[in-house]
């Protein structure tokens, strides 16, 4: 993969007593579409604003193309932002909004006209130059905001939940269009969202952020199929997550014991030892069941009910310890009537054994993240 265009090294951010970004180390590669994904308040927007310069890190280094920028003003940085609510200047028309950055740079007038026209064509707003901002629809405003940022040929384009205000259909359409633009222009996109589906469809890589810590950074398939932490497993897609203790480890997998019974899983984490407190995560669609106990598994539950939701059937099982367990099937005939007792099992590769992260000990965060970064290269090569 290409060289990093943005590097964040040991970046910390405190708001008074709130530690919002905890030792962030992040390399954004040239030309990639990176998504910062996490629930609201996790620090993803703060990370973005530190790259754009609207927030200064409490400590640490931020480099853009090798040059330290962490103390520079936003107008001195070669990055541009697409804001959440577009932030278009209502006192100017579409043309003047898009031309703003070029006028600041004192680009000759006819070149401005030419470049603005080209840019408006690129975002499919040909001929809208004279329109006032309040005459534009939400989707059109979004395009103007993207054009206004892209016309400056930034090294990195930062997008702060740019599609949040659009309706679902328009959002899907803009997702495809943004991806198209990014491929066409080859500009690095850093995209902030809390919508996991959006992240999975658009990104080259996703950084999942949880309480100011990057839990995992990887390609979408790896994030989905190999979550590194319990948080990632729970946040991306649906997962059944059970607290467990490692009972033993051998070539066939890791045997764990939960309150509801024993199970088998695998882990990417080699440091897991017998006796460790872990979580085991299984996707509802990966969960199998039968009337008889399967070797290595002893989780038993009672079927509560099942619901038909169109493309699949969801079944809810209550385990011995009272936990609710979700199972998805594509065929209604596979379902079992409520009240029946079943045994749950899965192919051992589908059960992800994850180390339970203690939230108090920051050192362990560093360990986990250090590991991630090493692996990252390997994943990138694989992908």
């Amino acid at each position, binding site marked *: 993969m290409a060289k990093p265009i943005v590097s964040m090294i040991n970046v910390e951010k405190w708001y008074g007593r709130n530690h919002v970004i905890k030792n962030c180390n992040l390399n954004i590669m040239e030309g990639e579409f990176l998504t910062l994904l996490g629930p609201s308040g996790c620090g993803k927007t703060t990370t973005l604003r530190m790259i*754009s*310069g*609207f927030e200064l890190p409490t400590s640490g280094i931020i480099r853009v193309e090798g040059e330290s920028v962490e103390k520079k*003003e*936003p*107008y001195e940085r070669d*990055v*541009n*932002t697409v*804001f*959440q*609510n577009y*932030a*278009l*200047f*209502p*006192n100017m028309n579409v043309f003047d909004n898009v031309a*703003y*950055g070029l006028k*600041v*740079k004192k680009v000759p007038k006819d070149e401005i006209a030419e470049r603005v026209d080209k840019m408006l064509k690129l975002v499919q707003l040909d001929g809208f130059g004279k329109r006032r901002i309040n005459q534009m629809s939400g989707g059109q405003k979004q395009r103007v905001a993207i054009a*206004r*940022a892209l016309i*400056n040929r930034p090294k990195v384009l930062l997008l702060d939940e740019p599609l949040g205000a659009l309706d679902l259909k328009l959002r899907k359409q803009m997702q495809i269009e943004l991806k198209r633009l990014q491929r066409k222009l080859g500009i690095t996109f850093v995209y902030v969202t809390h919508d996991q589906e959006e992240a999975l469809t658009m990104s080259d890589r996703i950084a999942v952020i949880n309480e100011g810590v990057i839990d995992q950074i990887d390609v979408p398939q790896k994030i989905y199929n190999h979550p590194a932490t319990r948080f990632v497993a729970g946040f991306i897609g649906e997962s059944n997550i059970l607290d467990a203790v490692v009972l033993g480890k051998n070539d066939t997998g890791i045997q764990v014991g939960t309150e509801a019974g024993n199970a088998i899983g695998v882990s990417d984490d080699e440091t897991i030892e017998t006796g460790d407190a872990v979580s085991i995560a299984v996707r509802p669609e990966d969960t199998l069941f039968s009337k008889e106990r399967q070797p290595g598994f002893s989780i038993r539950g009672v079927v509560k009910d099942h619901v038909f939701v169109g493309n699949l059937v969801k079944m809810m099982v209550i385990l011995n310890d009272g936990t609710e367990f979700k199972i998805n099937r594509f065929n209604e005939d596979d379902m079992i009537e409520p009240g029946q007792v079943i045994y749950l099992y899965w192919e051992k590769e589908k059960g992800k054994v994850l180390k339970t992260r203690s939230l108090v000990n920051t050192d362990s965060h560093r360990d986990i993240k250090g590991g991630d970064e090493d692996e990252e290269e390997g994943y990138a090569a694989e992908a």
Partner: protein
Amino acid sequence: MKKKDMQPKPKARRDKKTAKARLASIVMNGPITIWSILFIIVPVIILAVMSFMSKGPLGIVVYKPTLENYRNIFSSMYFNVIKESLIIAFWTTVLTILIGYPFAAIMAKMKAKTSSLFMILLMIPMWVSGLVIIYSFVILFNQSGILNTILMKIGLISKPLNMLYNHFSVTVGMLYMFMPFSVLPMYSSIEKLDPALIEASKDLGAGPVRTFFKVQLPLTAPGIFAAVLLTFIPCIGYYMVTDMLGGGTNMMIGNLIYRQFTISRNWPFGAALAMVLAIVILLMVWIYKKVGGNLDDLG
């Protein structure tokens, strides 16, 4: 058949509702309407009629139509007063805007707690009697007043400065009286400005100066214009400051009108002056609305 039977019922109910709403609207709007007619519209009509009447002996209004009053206004002596008051009002307005805008901008950036404290400080001149404030300025600016004493003590000046009864004292007094009217509308428009717009400008490479003139100033212009109106208009008619800090050397239209009704006992002429002032003010409000101002912002 059934449908036909059903239809009149909801209609009747709707009529009842409108009757109820109408009654409510009369009860709610009645008093304010009567009040406005009695104390605003009728007096203005009386004033307008009176401005075309002539003055009798001992200040009695003689009901004989004439244009004499309006002709008098444009005689050089009175016209000078109008010119003078417009100049003072102009400078007061310019200075209140220049001082008030940064003040409002700083206040808009403060935390809610601090900004409300400053708001109270700003409001104090509005709550204290103008007379008291103006007297304190007399004490401050006197030849042997506080300011002169301090300046002489620290040796900045050797002779007391003439600070009272001139343009300086009038402007300072006016400035003090009208600052709240100027800051409040500007504060509200600066506070409403989306900070993301300022960020967007900086993000696109514009420094603070360019951002101010290209984004902040145009977008807060309605607030500035409201501030201009709220300072300029009352300033022209305000006579207390000029009376006491101007020492009678500076006369404003307000003083002139006041004297016509009290000392000179020439009510028709006073009425004509008041009408001219009212027309000037209406003209300005009309311009304000034309350039896209919101009348609600004027309070």
